[in-house]
């Protein structure tokens, strides 16, 4: 038993080393490849290797007794100051292994897909370099055994996200989107930093075990409340919740595989990971949990409303991601940490599949993203259509597909541990989800062909692209079985989330028996989803033009398509005042008058003093000789006299 654990400890670092090597090889030698395809294969194989290792570790963990499953690997000390000791050390347990498998598994599929999607792109090797770096950083985030190393990964994935959103940097709008993502995330990161500072003060450590152990013995207090609020601020940035969700839709400027991997399946779920990992802290701060629930449900609803009438296929998926992240946080907010993680898992399957499907459509349509110019693609792209359709059913919450189980579990917990209002709003969001996803499906694949099929006939994608689609579609269909129907995931995660969940449940008053409602609610939510799809069928299945929407829907349509003017609001309320203050005060007064004044003043002073000092330099060598001799005499006499 111990020996096997030792072997695993030796093996685990290679999960990170493989993509790191891929990153280094492609990054250092990428420019010299004669055949660029090599970069794609190196990147894909590196991630596949780390998936295989992770799967091996997972299988080993399955055969271990529950209490021995957490494996701690210490590589070396990183920061050691006073009593604070932060190591580069990893903690592989039931929670992190799930994320590692998702990251490396879906990551490998998306690398494979990218070898086809990015073919012929001038930045081909650069793309795979960034993608491998992203995998490394994401693994740091979930494998770390302390908040600081998680933060390192957190910042690292932010960097990769920035680099990949602005991947096609020749276009200004892509660069702007990248900057927006980075700056908005910085606001969240500030929260994370403050939280870490508070943890150091309160617990004197940043290790998960010390912090969570300390919190358990300390019980509820206001500092823990503040820490969790600050952590949640970090999560709103990375995981795109109100008020910081605005960067995610713009992040779709990056290549589609990036949207699938980073901005749907993995990076944006790191906030959920952080909360689930610190579940005890959050369970001890009911106020924060309440705030999370409210923010989450608001995000889920508003994003869904915006998604309703978007015409860019990737924008629909982007807002849908924001909305689904809202559901995950709703689960966390009501104290159902396991349910939140379950939705991360299923969402990773179907959303990656949808994004890759949309990528296949965009690829086939020669980089057209506007659904108004698609339609009738079913017969041209049969594989893409079927996978996209299955993933749509999964996200819409139709049983027995994956999304149904996870979403229903969150809604049920929202009802039983939160309030019926949360459930009702969540169900409304589910209705909209079903509607807009079905709308996207119909507009893209059904109806009249709104493009020139004779000149540019769309073509089905290569094997390297449809294999990932089929695998992900399969997972979207079957992935739900891991969760509520078999209870496997719940049991697996229990050692991690049990404590937090029990604290939350214990703090709820009134243990009235709600079990009787579970089945009716489940049936209602299925009916709601079906109604959403039918409504979309009625209006969009044979649609010729979208122009009629605006007339029949009026004001709401305008609000929705303009994203509720949130960007404009931020522009007016934050960005313009910042520019104003920067220009009239920081630039014209602080910079020009104070900073420049100090620098120029010191230069003038030196100039003035030196006009006297320079007189010593006569240029006549003999003067220098005299000075040397006089100097020697003075020194000599000093030595001799004293």
């Amino acid at each position, binding site marked *: 038993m111990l020996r096997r654990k030792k072997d695993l400890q030796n093996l685990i670092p290679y999960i990170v080393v493989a993509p790191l090597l891929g990153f280094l090889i492609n990054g250092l030698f990428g420019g010299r490849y004669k055949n660029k395809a090599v970069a794609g294969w190196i990147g894909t194989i590196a991630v596949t290797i780390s998936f295989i290792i992770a799967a091996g570790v997972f299988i080993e963990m399955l055969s271990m007794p529950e209490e021995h499953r957490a494996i701690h690997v210490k590589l070396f000390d990183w920061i050691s100051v006073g009593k604070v000791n932060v190591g580069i050390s990893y903690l592989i347990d039931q929670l992190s292994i799930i994320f590692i498998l998702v990251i490396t598994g879906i990551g490998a599929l998306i690398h494979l897909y990218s070898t086809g999607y990015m073919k012929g792109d001038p930045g081909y090797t650069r793309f795979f370099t960034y993608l491998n770096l992203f995998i490394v950083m994401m693994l740091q985030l979930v494998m770390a055994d302390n908040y600081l190393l998680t933060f390192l990964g957190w910042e690292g994935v932010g960097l990769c996200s920035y680099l990949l959103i602005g991947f096609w940097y020749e276009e200004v709008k892509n660069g702007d989107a990248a900057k927006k993502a980075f700056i908005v995330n910085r606001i969240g990161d500030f929260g994370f930093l403050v939280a870490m500072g508070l943890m150091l003060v309160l617990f004197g450590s940043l290790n998960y075990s010390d912090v969570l152990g300390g919190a358990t013995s300390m019980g509820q207090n206001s500092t823990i409340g503040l820490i969790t609020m600050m952590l949640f601020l970090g999560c709103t940035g990375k995981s795109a919740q109100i008020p910081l969700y605005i960067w995610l839709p713009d992040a779709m400027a990056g290549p589609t595989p990036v949207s699938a991997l980073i901005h749907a399946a993995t990076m944006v779920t790191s906030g959920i990971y952080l909360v689930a990992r610190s579940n005890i802290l959050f369970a001890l701060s009911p106020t924060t949990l309440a705030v999370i629930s409210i923010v989450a449900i608001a995000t889920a609803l508003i994003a869904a409303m915006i998604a309703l009438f978007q015409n860019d296929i990737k924008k629909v998926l982007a807002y849908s991601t924001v909305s689904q992240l809202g559901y995950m946080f709703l689960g966390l907010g009501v104290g159902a940490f396991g349910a939140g993680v379950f939705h991360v898992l299923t969402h990773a399957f179907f959303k990656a599949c949808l994004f890759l499907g949309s990528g296949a459509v965009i690829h086939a349509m020669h980089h057209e993203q506007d659904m108004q110019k698609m339609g009738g693609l079913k017969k041209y792209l049969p594989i893409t259509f079927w996978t996209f359709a299955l993933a749509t059913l999964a996200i819409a919450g139709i049983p027995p597909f994956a999304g149904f189980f996870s979403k229903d579990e969150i809604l049920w917990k929202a009802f039983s541990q939160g309030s019926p209002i949360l459930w009702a709003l969540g169900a409304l969001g589910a209705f909209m989800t079903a509607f807009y996803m079905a709308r996207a499906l119909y507009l893209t694949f059904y109806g009249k062909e709104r493009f020139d099929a004779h000149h540019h006939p769309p073509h089905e994608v290569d094997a390297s692209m449809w294999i990932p689609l089929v695998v992900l579609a399969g997972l979207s269909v079957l992935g739900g079985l891991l969760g509520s129907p078999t209870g496997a995931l719940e049991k697996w995660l229990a050692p991690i989330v049990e404590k937090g969940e029990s604290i939350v449940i214990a703090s709820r008053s009134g243990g009235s028996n709600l079990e009787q409602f579970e089945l009716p609610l489940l049936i209602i939510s299925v009916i709601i989803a079906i109604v959403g799809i039918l409504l979309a069928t009625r209006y969009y299945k044979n649609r010729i033009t979208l122009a009629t929407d605006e007339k029949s829907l009026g004001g709401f349509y305008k609000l929705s398509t303009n994203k509720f003017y949130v960007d404009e609001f931020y522009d007016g309320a934050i960005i313009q005042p910042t520019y104003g203050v920067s220009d009239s005060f920081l630039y014209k007064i602080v910079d020009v008058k104070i900073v420049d004044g100090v620098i120029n003043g010191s230069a003038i002073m030196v100039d003035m003093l030196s006009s006297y000092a320079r007189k010593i*330099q006569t*240029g*006549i*060598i*003999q003067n220098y000789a*005299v000075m040397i*001799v006089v100097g020697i005499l003075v020194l000599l006499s000093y030595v001799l006299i004293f």
Partner: protein
Amino acid sequence: MSSLSNYLIVSAILFMIGAAGVMFRKNVIIIFMCVELMLNSVNLTLIAFSQFMGDQQGQILVFFVMTVAAAEAAVGLAIVISAYRNKDTVEIDHFNLLKG
């Protein structure tokens, strides 16, 4: 056989003459000769000490000093000649380009 201090006094006088020449004469060649004078006064000191202390190392060192001085004289005179070609003079006052 005179005492050590006699040698040292002569050596000091020679050194002072050399130093004064370096400081106050204007002709570069003379300054150069004064430098040699200073070097040789030091040589004298070395030999005197070497003789009176019964240690041959000082004498050996003097040979080194003389060798280096010979090389230095060759380089120095070359510099003086090329300086003369530029300015048509060897008066030290005319070479003050590094004036601050």
